């Protein structure tokens, strides 16, 4: 049986303290929520927590020193650090257009790092 988990709901400033526990049959029991958004949030956070990763990487020959990037979809939370490691020592060449793929299929997730701005050549 999984241990129970404590979470803070992020849907509104209330920030309800949620507790999620699991029955032997694997059912999820959530307590502490004051609205249904909290219930959905808790289930998602314990079953499959995901995040969008945003960062910025250096540009070679660009009008700007850095280009901002993000994942084009959410990635599993536990892969955040592995995905960030891919950016270590990474450099991209100008010109870059917003939406360009910077790294494809990061950590086998099928998710790409894409540019969130355009950077012209110097």
């Amino acid at each position, binding site marked *: 049986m999984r241990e129970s988990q404590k979470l803070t*709901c992020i849907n509104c400033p209330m920030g309800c303290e949620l507790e999620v526990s699991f029955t032997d049959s694997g059912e999820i029991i959530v307590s502490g929520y004051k609205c249904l958004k909290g219930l959905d949030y808790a289930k998602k956070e314990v079953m499959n927590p995901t995040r969008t990763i945003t960062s910025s990487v250096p540009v070679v020959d660009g009008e700007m020193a*850095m280009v901002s990037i993000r994942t084009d979809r959410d990635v599993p939370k536990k892969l955040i650090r592995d995905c960030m490691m891919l950016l270590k020592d990474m450099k991209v060449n100008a010109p870059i257009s917003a939406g360009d793929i910077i790294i494809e299929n990061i950590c086998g997730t099928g998710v790409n790092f894409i540019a*969130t701005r355009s950077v012209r050549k110097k």
Partner: protein
Amino acid sequence: MEYRDLVIIGAGPAGLAAAISAYEQGIRDILILERENFLGGILNQCVHNGFGLHTFHEELTGPEYASRYIDKLSDLKIEYMLETMVIDISEMRNVIAINEKRGVMEIQAGAIILAMGCRERPRGALNIPGSRPSGIYSAGTAQKFVNLDGYLPGREIVILGSGDIGLIMARRLTLEGVNVKMVLEILPYSSGLKRNIVQCLDDYDIPLKLSHTVTKIHGSERIEGVTVSQVDEDLMPIPGTETYVSCDALLLSVGLIPENELSRKANVTINPKTQGPIVNERLETSRPGIFACGNVLHVHDLVDYVSEEAALAGKNAADFIKNVSSEGLEVEIFAGDGVRYTVPNKVNPINVEKYLPVRFRVTKVFSQATVLVEFDNLPVHKKKKTIMTPGEMEQVFLPKSWFTERPFLRKITVRIEGDENA
């Protein structure tokens, strides 16, 4: 001297939205003056996501949100000048600006929109004892180093203040391999959004120490560490609670102040509560034809509201240029119990279209309390709120009919009533 119908100072989210809105109202002779060498203002360094949920119903990063407006601006061919510093504006809307190419310019504006944004509170505002070493930055400066310039401010960092920029930087630096040791907040609650506390601190096990502050800074050339103390209810350090924390950088995320040096030069009256201009329902300052919007008016927590407010300023500036008259008496709007300030501060009921949005912040955390709007001390609107915090801007919408039903209205009050719970 040249003449321009509309001069907008600042090309951040407020300036861009104001320009587009004025254009849509038929104004063509528009000039935006921007001191940086890019459009979009602070959004350029806000590479994280979470922008635009209200306006575009999708989650954008700062640069993506800015580009929606920048693309529109270039489609409409609205003129702007980069690397141009406005050094003076007068009551009569005479603008002095300077840049490398043209030198000093004198422009007479039909109307001006102030959209200069805000600044971070610096160390000097905090009275922290200790030496003056390098390695102490505001969170926004650190954000610029990391996201625009490609430098890290340090390897072992303490963050003082739990404002949103500090929280965002705690995550950003952690992802770059920096050891973010702790975030300190002098108040018993954080002014940051819950979402940021969870996704920027909890996700990475960064401790948030409430009711704690820095009481000494150590180091001579470079910062070497800080003394951290717990504070009592009066926010005074409790003797005996001091601990030493080593660090090579200290980031400050302790609040934002509207940047109104230029507004003061034009003799615009400033509201001491917001540090932004006093405005009426058209977002017009105490000087006719000078309007204000965005963080120069009051600090916002969502850029969506900045864009919305700026669009209103743009429309009203257009009306002013077109000489749309607005007669009638102004009614004052007061911040009552539990309300720190309201924007606007005055309203001419004749100019209210469908409804008047009134934005405000509460003075402390309220739960299960009621927002009360009174017209001449009589309640006209009550709304129960589960929770209100000083960190999140609140708003009420006053429909036109409430004003037409009360032609002799003198005073509007917004206040909080009921159970309070910090």
